């Protein structure tokens, strides 16, 4: 009952409705969207910026939070895509946008801040609306924080080797199913799970080595 990781689509209608409401200006919906998805997106972006050789170059120009804003604005503007994606869960969809955004940033090396409103909306009215939305998303996403323990976790994650780090990122930050994780890594779902187990073992031991909080 607790693990819904492999049952994507169950909450699809709820997710779509949530994004739609956030886009229509519901602060509550935007808040919930942020609460649910933003920390993982931030963790994903941070990990990519820290460890991905291509993305590392971005760090000089871009804060992880700016990227997060871009992703959220694009997500809210591109609601139609979510509906088109059918059974894709919300977090995985957002993660896909984040990965695309990172890739775009790396390849295009655009110097100036992009006008996202123009990018996601063609006509004037819609553009103004997205512009307003963007302002709210900016202020809201600045409130997203990672737990102190998560910061330690990110540091430990950076010390893993590439496949192990990747499997954690895909499984936890992108919330892909085992089948999808396997596909992305070119392995079977079971092999991906084994790899994940090894990654978690390494992470646990590293975290434990750093600080012993346990009572036992």
């Amino acid at each position, binding site marked *: 009952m607790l693990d819904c990781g492999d049952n994507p689509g169950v909450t699809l209608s709820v997710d779509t409705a949530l994004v739609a409401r956030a886009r229509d200006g519901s602060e509550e919906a935007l808040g919930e969207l942020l609460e649910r998805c933003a920390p993982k997106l931030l963790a994903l972006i941070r990990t990519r910026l820290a460890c991905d050789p291509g993305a590392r170059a971005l760090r000089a120009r871009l804060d992880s939070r700016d990227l997060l804003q871009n992703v959220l604005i694009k997500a809210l503007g591109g609601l139609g895509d979510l509906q088109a994606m059918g059974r894709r869960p919300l977090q995985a969809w957002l993660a896909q946008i984040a990965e695309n955004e990172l890739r775009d940033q790396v390849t295009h090396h655009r110097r100036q801040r992009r006008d996202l409103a123009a990018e996601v909306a063609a006509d004037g009215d819609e553009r103004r609306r997205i512009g307003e939305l963007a302002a709210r998303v900016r202020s809201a996403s600045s409130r997203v924080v990672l737990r102190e323990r998560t910061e330690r976790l990110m540091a430990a994650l950076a010390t893993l080797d590439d496949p192990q780090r990747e499997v954690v990122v895909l499984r936890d930050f992108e919330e892909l199913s085992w089948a999808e994780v396997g596909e992305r890594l070119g392995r079977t779902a079971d092999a991906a799970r084994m790899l994940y187990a090894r990654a978690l073992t390494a992470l*646990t031991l590293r975290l434990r080595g750093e600080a012993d909080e346990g009572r036992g």
Partner: protein
Amino acid sequence: MSGGRVEASPLERLLEVWIERDLEGEHNGGEGGVRDARELAVELGLAEELTEAQLEELLGRFAATRREYEMLRRDLSAPGSAKPAAAASSEPAEPGPAERGVELPSFEGFRTIELLGRGGGGEVYKLFDERLERMVAGKVLRREGELGGSVREFLEEARSLALFDDPRIARVLDLRIELDPPVLVMEHVEGFDLSRVGRSLPDPQLAGMLAEVARAVDHAHRLGVVHGDLKPSNIRVGAELEPKILDFGLATRLGDRERIRLRGTLAYMAPERLVPEAPIDARADVYSLGVVLYQLLCGTLPYQGASDEAQIAAIREGIPRLPIELAPRVAEPLQAIALQAMSREPGDRYASANELALDLERFRDGRPVLARPVLYQATLAERLRGHLEQIREWSRLKLIYRHEAAALESAYGRLEARDEDWIVQSRRLTPWRISLYLGVFVLVCGALLYLAAYVEGAVEGVAAPLVVLVPPLVALGAGAAWLFRRDARAVAVAFFMASVALVPILLLIALRETGIWPAAAGDADQLFLDGPFSNRQLQVAGLLTSAWCLALAYRTRTVALSSSLLITAFLLDLALLADLGLRSWLEEENLDRLAVHLLPFLAIAWIAGVLADRSRAPWFCRPLYVGAASLGVLIVELMAQDGEVFRHLGLTLEALRPEDVSHERLLETVVTMVANGVLIALAASLLERRGSLAMLPAARLLVVVAPFAMLKPLGYLSAVGEYSVRWDWLYLGLSLAVAFWSHLRERRSFYYAGVINSGFALYFLTVHNEWWDRPAWGTSVLTVALLLLALGLVLFRRERRQHG
């Protein structure tokens, strides 16, 4: 990935396999997985590689590492937050506005040091008060247009905070409403989150500190304020381990309950806050404190979920793992306190934060705690389910016999519906229990004797009965209510039962003395012709007593009071039937009419039983089922008297009656009795096969009754002297046959019925033939007995031979 695999340490090997299994378990929906590290170590061959001491040390390290793993999983599934929780948290709000080039706001009279956090409707800054030269925390109303509350809410918060005068609650120093934006100046609290300090504290200190927290929360409750967002990050611990509660930002006056329903932190929210319309009170905070203690004990949250929906479902319906399972060193009394506070039903929790504090202090001082969490019972029920399935599987595989499976199932069933407080079900007889329930019984007798004296006219007026009956009633009721809260449930239940006996007697006397609803003289429908009480008076007394008993049964959730309710309801039913002519039925021996009129009561009891069963109230449905089954037997037996049922159905067997039988309805009676036996046996078997677990006691009762009911017609024929000799031998033969048949279904009750009835048959034979003075009769019976013993030996040898 495989570089270091060759020289992997035992801990690493153990952890990796453990995690693999854990993931596999999740993947398969909870199937599989490992729960015992030692077992796993043996499986991996580590037990052979290492000495016993090394293995112990490894397992110790593994337990700690496993907690780290569980925390890692939690962090991975929820890495952060979009609303920083602690209002006056000193955790760096990373990256703060300062780092990002945004200027810190300035407030007149203060120097802004840094941003402490955001949440609860505003931002909190660390400020230096230039006038008084001290550090303060300033909560700033968030600027309009962004997420956040209004000035009104801000004022409310400030006022509710200003009510507090408790060193354990962050104090309000000032409200600078004239500033733009307004600033709430609060005490600045140095220290750490409870989540960072709590787990490293020894148990007694932890309990003492949480008791302080609970007392502070209780202080707020007394002022009518609910915190609404208690969690470790809102509890700050100073250098002297003194706790301080922050962020009454969600705090709500108790009158304004709806506001707190869905604000706060999901993981710490009481289930009733997740249900629209459910009433919310201060016990929601008690729940949150329970979750905090749970988390401090075992390092994980009790209810988790991949999504909010899953987590909400878990909080509302799930059963948490016991802390002791997750961390073997958890002290059981602390676990009991946490689970008691976390009970799903507010009524099962501590009644107030103060009671929670008292129990924590008991633990701190090394005294036994009072917590008896209902979650233990729920956990047990949950775990029994698997065992019951296994028993059914064993029975299917013929590893055990059906009757053994039934016996095991009912033993498990007893465990589930265990009602230790009542003498009938308690596992241990103690002098105090015996004394209590003997007291209840004698009290009932005494009350009835007093009523008799009153009816006889020996007691005059209303004063004397009031003096005799009211003080014990009040004392028992109040004493029971007090004892029930003080966790002396066993005594409380006995007191409640005793009070139930006093209520109707007091009511009857009161009604008669006040002359309400008197019986009209000579009214033939009255139960007591020209007697002391009218039907209406009896009905009102019965109704009020039943209602009182129902309330008590629901409050105590015990079989004892449910059974009392069943009895009072039955008496009420009889009082209601009095209007329909109960007295004349009894006087004219029209017992069939009584039987027919009892049918609605049977139906109501059964339906109520099914409903209680569905809503998982075994304490209520079991007595109802057993009561309904007994009533059913009573009804069919009453209908059998003089074959009345045939008359009701408009049938007669007169045509079949032999000439020489003078008894008018002999055949009808015997046929009905036979049919009853079959009916009861069928009902018993139906209940056993198709019924729920709670129906088993009722089924067992019917199984016991069935063979007796089957042999009854023959016994009846024998007893009706006129035809005796013809039937006596058949009666004896059939009784012996029933005893022999008992092995077919493994029904001991058939054996007992056969044995007892054959004894009756022998007695009737002797009486009817007047064989009292015949030694030959005794000798022949002796011979038959020896033959039976010899037969036993032969059968035993044959069975031995067959089995090789």
